[in-house]
């Protein structure tokens, strides 16, 4: 589905990704772990065309993403739930969803499905996104990305700062998407969440993927967690 090969990317003259290679497969959840500043967010941003990729290849089902105009990338079916949510705060819930629907020309059927997934959003359609609670905002960020019916969903620490019931809901959603054949890339720092959800785990260190393992090979006490995440 998605492959990165030897990707160098950074901000201006600051290089962050150094020869990063990564793969995400349809119907699988690939978790990305690594210390703060390792480059996890930057990797997702490189896929979205938001940071300059100076060398390497990024392919979605064989199509080259690097060098594509950034607004074309989501149109290929990539949904992005960025770190910190990045909702359009002054816009209403309905308008935020509308932006997602417009990305690939989806209509009311898609919108209905998203609202069935997150009924709380339906009660707040006319409310400004910035006035939602943290959990509701995260639902909206995910809902907005699902509005483009992505085949690849990039989630950057979606459960950061949420209460357990909300985390459970988001995990359920991820599982459901996997069942529907979506390729999910999930940046997640909590070991038990990773072990619960992941099919494969990629450990990022100083701008490259140092190791990728099947989740089945990892236990809560696995030394890789201490080594790459520092827990």
């Amino acid at each position: 589905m998605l492959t990165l090969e030897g990707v160098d990317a950074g901000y201006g003259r600051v290089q962050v990704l150094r020869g990063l290679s990564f793969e995400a497969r349809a119907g699988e959840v690939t978790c990305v772990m690594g210390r703060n500043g390792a480059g996890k967010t930057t990797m997702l941003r490189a896929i979205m065309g938001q940071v300059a990729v100076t060398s390497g290849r990024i392919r979605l089902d064989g199509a080259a993403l690097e060098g594509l105009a950034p607004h074309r990338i989501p149109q290929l079916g990539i949904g992005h739930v960025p770190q910190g949510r990045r909702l359009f705060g002054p816009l209403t819930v309905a308008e935020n969803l509308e932006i997602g629907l417009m990305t690939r020309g989806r209509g009311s059927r898609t919108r209905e499905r998203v609202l069935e997934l997150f009924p709380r959003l339906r009660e707040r359609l006319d409310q400004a996104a910035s006035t939602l609670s943290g959990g509701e905002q995260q639902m909206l960020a995910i809902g907005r990305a699902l509005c483009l019916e992505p085949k690849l969903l990039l989630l950057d620490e979606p459960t950061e700062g949420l209460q357990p019931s909300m985390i459970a809901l988001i995990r359920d959603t991820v599982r459901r998407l996997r069942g529907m054949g979506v390729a999910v890339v999930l940046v997640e720092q909590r070991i038990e969440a990773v072990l619960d959800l992941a099919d494969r785990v990629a450990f990022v260190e100083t701008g490259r993927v140092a190791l990728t393992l099947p989740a089945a090979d990892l236990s809560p006490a696995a030394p890789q967690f201490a080594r790459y995440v520092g827990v």
Partner: protein
Amino acid sequence: MDFGPFLLLAVMEGLVGAAVLALTASGLSLVFGVLRVVNVAHGEFFMLGAVAAWFVSQWVPGPPALAFAVALVACPLLVAGLAALADRLVLKRLAYEPEATIIATIGLLYILQQAALTLYGPEARPVPPPFEARLQLPWFGWSGYKLFVIGAAGAVLAGLWLLLARSRIGLVMRATQIDRETATAFGIDVDRVYAGTFALGAALAAIAAVLIVPIQQAHYLMGGDPLLLSFIVVVIGGLGSLRGTLVAALLIGVSDGVISTFFEPTLAKILATLLVALVLVFRPQGLFGARA
């Protein structure tokens, strides 16, 4: 004339100015809001609209109403096209850098002004109004055309509001204004939104100019006042707030009319500038702007 009717006349004159100012300033405000570009050449788009309207009045035969109707459509389109070109050739290349675009639009101001001087000349030329009608009030008669200007400006502004608040184009513009990177991550072509918004802002100034030339002649230096007043209005109303822009345009336009009638136009400008200074000191985000 008694004081009451005299005041009424002053307010009505002020409303004409306010209507035209609201159009011009909302263009400036829109461009600043979405692109974060302070367009110093905005007044020149106004001037180009007026000058183009004069050319149209010369070229289009038949009754003045026909030439006026043609000008009202063609001049804003022409100016919008020029603005889109300026966006491509200048602003985009500067990556919409706030400081760089101020300098660049100052340059654009002189280029457009000198181009108008060369092609149009230094004369001030009148454009005939589309119709001659008088509105007879008990105390004085008033130009029916001025009433039309107020109505037309109101209609355009209502259309602008509908576009921004109710249409998909407006939603895309607002999303881009809030967060251009996230907008891009949802398939919005920010370059196109910027070019379109810059063109729309210029077109609003051009519409204002086409409306005003039958009252105030076309001249290659006429862009200065609308630019200054638009800045005043945008600062008072709050940068990027359309509602604030409209309220401030009404305030400045009407008080300008009243003070100019009873005292001096210069005093009106001095007071408006003083008001800007006060707003900047006590409410830098403007009367309606969100706190930055």
